[in-house]
């Protein structure tokens, strides 16, 4: 993941974002290649979500550029990025089928039968009001829809935070099983030990700066310990 790559799926240069006097992202440079599962790791408030929101066009950047598949965030990138936000985004009255029909209507890369199969497998009824589901089930329902798109980039913001271990297993399994091999997954979390076995690469982020961007195997062999242990040392927590 060095800067001279030209086959990057995502290319971020000099990205800076401030909220008033607080600097949420400070001159971030990143290149994400295609076909990788990448962990975006950092403590709460480190800038993970800000970076992800910028990539999805939910914030306007202060300085710097983001290119996803050659485009700045906009209609073109939204068509090829499948995003699972940290917040749950459906309105109170929505049922699973309502959210489903949004995906069906707006994303050309949405695989309807795949999504239906997965929902059935996970025993989530289309008729359930989303409000009535447990957090884990809601997360699973949204993940099924997100992973049923044949996207170039999947951005999953804290997909396993606050769900029980059984739901977490299902979520990780669904991610591994369903993503398109030529696409990249960017997965943010502060719970590294739970997901480090599924990662190819990691990006450490703290105080809006990227500290490290490396392959997981490199860290394990260079440090002789888990990424989680290394992370704890780097962030001293």
């Amino acid at each position, binding site marked *: 993941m060095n800067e001279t790559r030209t086959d990057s799926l995502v290319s971020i240069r000099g990205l800076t974002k401030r909220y008033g006097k607080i600097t949420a992202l400070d001159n971030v440079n990143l290149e994400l290649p295609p076909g990788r599962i990448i962990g975006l790791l950092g403590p709460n408030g480190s800038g993970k979500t800000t970076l992800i929101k910028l990539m999805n066009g939910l914030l306007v950047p202060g300085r710097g550029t983001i290119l996803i598949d050659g485009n700045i965030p906009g209609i073109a990138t939204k068509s090829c990025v499948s995003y699972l936000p940290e917040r749950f985004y459906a309105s109170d009255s929505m049922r699973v089928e309502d959210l489903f029909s949004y995906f069906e209507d707006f994303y050309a890369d949405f695989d309807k039968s795949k999504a239906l199969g997965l929902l059935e497998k996970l025993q989530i009824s289309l008729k359930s009001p989303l409000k009535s589901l447990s957090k884990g089930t809601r997360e699973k329902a949204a993940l099924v829809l997100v992973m049923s798109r044949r996207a170039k980039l999947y951005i999953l913001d804290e997909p396993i935070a606050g769900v029980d271990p059984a739901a977490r*297993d299902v979520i990780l399994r669904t991610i*591994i099983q369903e993503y398109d091999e030529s696409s990249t997954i960017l997965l943010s979390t502060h719970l590294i030990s739970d997901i480090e076995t599924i990662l190819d690469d990691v990006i450490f982020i703290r105080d809006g700066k990227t500290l490290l961007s490396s392959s997981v195997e490199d860290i394990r062999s260079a440090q002789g310990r888990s990424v989680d242990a290394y992370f704890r040392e780097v962030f001293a927590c």
Partner: protein
Amino acid sequence: MAWTLDSDRPIYAQIVERLKLQIVSGNYPPGARLPSVRELAAQASVNPNTMQKAFTELERTGLIVTLRTSGRIVTQDGERIAVARRELAQEQVRLFWEQMTQLGYDREQILSLLLETGGNTHE
């Protein structure tokens, strides 16, 4: 359930060990079809690239064979499986020996203890 893996050691080596054990113990009998990389990766909750690497290693040692049409199967070469079994057994013995030595037993003591307890458990 996700496989219990120790994240301090290379993941792929642990997967190789685990698959070897399953083949030797007959969990995947000779000639049996193995699940796809993706399926097994999902089952184990590991990166598909890592699982692929483990498969490549097992193929290199001849324990599994890739067929042109129908995916991967366990080798039908009984000899090869026997060799793998022996390798695993030797590794267990080596570890056992190492730990017993650490406990302060010498060769004679270990052997006699082994005969004693081994005899008992067989009863």
